[in-house]
């Protein structure tokens, strides 16, 4: 018998994130790099670490290799513990049967025995889709104070975007009275962040009932939450006001990176009281040469910058040769921009090699993407919005 834990976190990391196109062809969305030296999953994992949650189950399914290798023993997030830690939970076979995770609720259902080992009071459900810093413990205190069966984190979104989200309609005491998935005429702009805290016994009950319902699509938003509301369970909304960005599309991933270059970024990654941890590659310090221009950029370990870089994110081990130009772009780890190449409004994926005389992206229009390890030959033009795979 393991020690009882007050709260266990389950992180849904199995999605492909197909709207990220060629960036997620070889890895799950939570493994996608962000902000120079992070990956998306660093945010929920660091949030757990900063919130005193020390058991995290990570549910993987789509292309798990990159994610498994990245999480490994959980050391970067202080989750390599004897009593707890991070556990990668892929789908598994039982006896004659065995199945893939058929939905978010089913993924947790299949891992009820994992949660039960810790006999927790509460279970926190997370996804690996967003960039945000959040103290889950404050949300847990809210859940306890409201004597709730389920608490859903909500964030106000612009009214004109509200119809893209799951919208929570609440009374004055934060009780959720209605949930509408992507409503045409939203009654509020409180969007669900996909962050849930359940009282363990209620979660177990509803997951088992949901699994026994052949018509269910085994999804938290579509099935579990509506069922609990129908039964009059105590559902509370927890308002979160900090930076929160979905990075589900090429454009939003690019925007979220550019947000870090604001004069005062809305998300503070410098905050020593709430650090965002990442696996460190142990590269050399960054070197900015005599010929380099580095203007309004984030640059990290292992970079060798000799060219002109403006308003861009240069990730671990990126090389920009003398005479190359990088503007308004996100260059992912290990990419090489050679002399004479021009990269504008683009995401250049890991280890891509942009040869001289090629032009990636345009000054206006959609974001261009160069795939992982792709060589862009001399003289190539990659148009705005194009996903170039060679």
């Amino acid at each position, binding site marked *: 018998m393991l020690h009882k834990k007050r709260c266990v976190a389950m992180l849904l990391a199995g999605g492909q994130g197909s709207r990220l196109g060629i960036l997620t062809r070889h890895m799950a969305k939570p493994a996608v790099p962000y*902000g*120079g*030296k992070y990956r998306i999953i660093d945010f929920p994992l660091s949030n757990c670490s900063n919130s005193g949650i020390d058991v995290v189950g990570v549910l993987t399914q789509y292309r798990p290799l990159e994610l498994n290798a990245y999480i490994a023993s959980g*050391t*970067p997030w202080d989750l390599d513990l004897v009593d707890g830690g991070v556990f990668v939970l892929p789908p598994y076979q039982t006896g004659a049967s065995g199945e893939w995770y058929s939905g978010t609720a089913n993924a947790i259902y299949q891992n009820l025995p994992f949660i039960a080992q810790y006999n927790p009071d509460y279970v926190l459900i997370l996804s690996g889709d967003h960039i945000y810093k959040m103290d889950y413990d404050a949300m847990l205190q809210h859940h306890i104070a409201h004597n709730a069966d389920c608490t859903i984190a909500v964030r106000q979104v612009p009214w004109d975007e509200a119809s893209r989200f799951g919208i929570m309609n609440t009374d004055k005491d934060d009780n959720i009275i209605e949930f509408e998935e992507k409503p045409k005429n939203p009654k509020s702009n409180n969007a669900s962040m996909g962050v849930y805290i359940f009282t363990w016994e209620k979660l177990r009950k509803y997951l088992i009932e949901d699994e026994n319902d052949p018509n269910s699509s085994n999804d938290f938003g579509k099935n579990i939450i509506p069922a609990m509301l129908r039964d009059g369970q105590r559902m509370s909304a927890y308002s979160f006001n900090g930076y929160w960005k979905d990075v589900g599309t090429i454009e939003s991933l690019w925007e979220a990176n550019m947000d870090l270059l604001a004069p005062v970024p809305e998300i503070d*990654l*410098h905050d020593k009281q709430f*650090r*965002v*941890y*990442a696996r*460190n590659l*142990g*590269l*050399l*310090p*960054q*070197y*900015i*040469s*005599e010929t*380099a221009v*580095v*203007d*309004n*950029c*984030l*640059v*990290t*370990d292992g970079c*060798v910058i000799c060219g002109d870089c403006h308003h861009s*994110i*240069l*990730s671990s081990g990126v090389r920009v040769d003398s005479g190359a130009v990088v503007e308004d772009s996100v260059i992912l780890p290990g990419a090489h921009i050679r002399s004479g190449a021009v990269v504008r409004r683009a995401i250049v994926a890991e280890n891509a090699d942009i040869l001289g005389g090629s032009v990636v992206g345009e000054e206006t229009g959609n974001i261009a993407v160069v795939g992982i390890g792709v060589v862009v030959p001399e003289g190539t033009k990659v148009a705005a919005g194009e996903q170039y795979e060679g």
Partner: protein
Amino acid sequence: MKSSIMGLIYTGERDQQLRELTNVRAVAAVPLCSRYRLIDFPLSSMVDSGIRNVGVIMQRNYNSLMDHLGSGKEWDLHGKRTGLVILPPFTTSDNVGVYAGFLDALHSNLNYLQRSKEKYVVVTDTHMLYTTRYDDMVAAHEASGADITLLYTRDPGMKRLQTGRYLHVEADQTVTAIEVDPATPRLDCTYMECFCMEREKLIEMVDTAVSRGQYHLTRDLLMNAISNHTMKVKGFECTGRAWHLDSVQAYFDCNMDLLSPEVRANLFPADRPILTKLRDEMPTRYFPGSSVKNSLLADGCIIEGTVENCVLFRGVHIGKGAVVRNSIIMQDGTVSEGAELDNCILDKQTFVRPNSRLIAPRSYPILIAKQMTV
């Protein structure tokens, strides 16, 4: 594969040469090149040579060294079977705590040497900066049938007046002469204060020497062994760049040397990472209006001013309009708005007030001690 080599790093002697830099820390813990400490280099070279059992003999001021090394996790030396073994001074009837010399220090830690299992031991001091393959050195030692093999360099830049240990090495790598602290070095090779030999032989040698009142390896033991041919002494050449960090000036020049990409490529071979203690910092932010040329920077810096020919450590802040040239600024240092620095070394957490001017000649850099406000 199980390694037949163990490592021993001595961090004891001569920690006054670097003045304020070593008032608060051992030489081995001196920060350099934006994110490293001196001990990272021998330690990483050892790990890279397949060595899994590394003892670190501590002497004075070892607090920051302990903090840096931790459990040895960053070097994969936190194993159950073997790993990092910290050997602080301790006082017993055999161990006075303050070592009279290198052999004395080894003698006080004989127990560790005795209970280790590896056939060979590589022993190194920490005043020299270099990377080498210790496994190649031991292979050469084994092939030559030597009693002891000394690491040396032919780099003329390693020669010093009044101090240092110099060797003459024949083409077959036989060491035929040694001189200790000559006013003017006459021999052509510099001994890099690192040797290898069989572990059992080292135990025997140390025990014999100390029981006869000999405490210094070079002066008392090697000199005699070479001139009287009592031991077969061979050399192993370190062909890469090396630095002797025996003065503030040498420390300063070494950091400035590392601004050259060629020099860095020599000290940091591409396939052999130098590992160090990690700190989770965000990437460095270059604000509009900043200008950075020919500089090394760690993560977590905020650059709003002008930086030329500098080595900046983690978390350094260069304010608007500040101009910093030819300087080394260690972790969490702040250079406020409008300040001007040239040829300065700022130890950790120093604070330079707005519009201050700290201008020194290249030949005598200003050294600001840890946590000072200027």
